């Protein structure tokens, strides 16, 4: 009953930008959907105690893969979309067994280096990726013979992707996989002594998160029709991390709230552009000092206190 009420509330909230129909609001809504997906992909990695800069690289790989498969090889966009996710997942499956042996700050640095390398390839392999001039003329997406041209179409697509990702992450965390993930984070040695193949689980989760990040990249590419490497830079990873910190990591709702709050921020501060980074930093400091568990954690604590 409560779940139903929440679902209806979310649905109503999601239709608001459609009712306004303002192109600008729809743009922000679409970006919220895309970044929610990326932040959720990072969320699962953080649940196993691995802060990953690779998720945004997977998003970029998905974006360029989807664009190039459509433009160069003439793939139908629906197939390119699926391939974007699968290619990112395949890459995660290949590098995962190497990367995920490493933990803590070393893993952070390793994935940071990986994302930098991926970004450099986008920048310097100009004949394929268009370099810093960008890749232009990415066709609009067509799903089931229906061409997505309007901003509202992409808003719906991004919202559905974010919702599917959210429900998947939630289902994973509530299943026995969630138990495995929390055990890996909490006490890996004990989990292993009880038979858990820790590495294979980390690789499995890495692969799933890469799949969703790749899909987010594909939506991004076909929505904007234009790609350039800075979109998948270090700063996008920082955004995804901040979304998780501000929203909170206790439940998958955290990164969703984080994305809803954070994505519009640069737009809201557009008139005070020089203060944008400052405001960003101030918000982050406040959360790190006073709301370490994020908004979700804070609300849960208050609920416990009143009940």
């Amino acid at each position, binding site marked *: 009953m409560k779940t139903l009420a929440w679902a209806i509330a979310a649905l109503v909230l999601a239709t608001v930008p459609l009712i306004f129909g303002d192109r600008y609001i729809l743009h922000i809504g679409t970006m919220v959907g895309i970044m929610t997906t990326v932040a959720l992909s990072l969320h699962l990695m953080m649940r196993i105690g691995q802060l990953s800069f690779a998720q945004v690289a997977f998003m970029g790989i998905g974006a360029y893969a989807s664009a190039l498969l459509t433009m160069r090889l003439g793939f139908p966009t629906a197939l390119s979309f699926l391939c974007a996710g699968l290619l990112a997942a395949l890459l995660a499956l290949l590098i995962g067994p190497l990367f995920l042996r490493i933990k803590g700050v070393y893993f952070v640095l390793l994935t940071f280096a990986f994302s930098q390398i991926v970004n450099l390839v986008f920048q310097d392999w100009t004949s394929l990726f268009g370099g810093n001039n960008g890749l232009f003329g990415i066709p609009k997406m067509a799903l089931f013979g229906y061409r997505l041209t309007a901003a509202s179409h992409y808003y719906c697509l991004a919202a559905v992707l974010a919702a599917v990702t959210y429900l998947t992450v939630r289902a994973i965390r509530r299943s026995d996989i969630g138990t495995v993930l929390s055990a890996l984070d909490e006490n890996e040695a*004990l989990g292993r*002594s009880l038979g*858990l193949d820790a590495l*294979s*689980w980390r690789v*499995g989760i890495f692969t799933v998160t890469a799949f969703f990040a790749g899909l987010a990249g594909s939506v991004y590419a076909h929505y904007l029709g234009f790609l350039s490497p800075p979109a998948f830079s270090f700063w996008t990873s920082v955004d995804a991390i901040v979304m998780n910190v501000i929203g909170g990591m206790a439940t998958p709702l955290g990164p969703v709230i984080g994305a809803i709050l954070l994505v519009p921020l640069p737009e809201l501060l557009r008139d005070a552009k020089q203060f944008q980074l400052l405001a960003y930093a101030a918000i982050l400091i406040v959360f790190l000092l006073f709301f370490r568990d994020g908004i979700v954690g804070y609300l849960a604590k208050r609920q416990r206190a009143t009940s």
Partner: protein
Amino acid sequence: MTAGLTLAGVSRNFGGLRAVSDMSFETARGEIFGVIGPNGAGKTTLFNVIAGVHPASDGRISFYGKEITGSRSDRVSRLGIARTFQATNVFKEESVSENLRRGALFGEIHSPLAFLRRCFAGRAPAATRPDIDEIAAFIGLADQMGKPAGSLAYGLQKILGVGMALMQRPRLMLMDEPAAGLNPTEKTVMAALIARLRDERGIDVLVVEHDMKLIMSICDRILVVRQGCRIALGTPEAIQADQAVIEAYLGADYEFA
């Protein structure tokens, strides 16, 4: 005598240090096998080599005819060798019953592929409610099931560790200093529990322990280790009478209580 765990010439080096040196022994089916030795003798290293935490530098280990040399701890566990830890090691935030459930769950869905296989085979989970209740009753924690494991007394947390290991349905239980940190009453309970593992559930036990009284009272045979080497192996009576053991390990004047 059926050989259970078999070590043949097992060594383990850490850099230049040889922590375990050319160790060979066999445990028998249904045996409680003790390992003793002074601090730094290499008992814990030996334990970790068997449990797959550290690979052996040399030699071979097998278990009921199956080669396990070089297997990682999770695989060793799935082959029927469970272990307990020297300090308490439980999922502190989770309830006692959830801790027990995890004991069986993690072996069953040890990897994503195993999880998918379970989904498609539609098999019933390994840890059913009656299994968990049965083990809880066996270890005497049936009335603590809902409590967070971290809130239990130290001794009970160690008992819970034995229960989690039992949930794996092992053939052999490796126990790393089960009595360490326990008060005399708890030690008695633990000693009785170890004996019941073998008597009531037919599990072989290999126990590393400092407490002489406990080791002498429950073990069928005892291995004495010093500086990584085996210096004696025999029944408690034989070990207590072994002059080399008394001199090397306990000091010439020591008398067994």
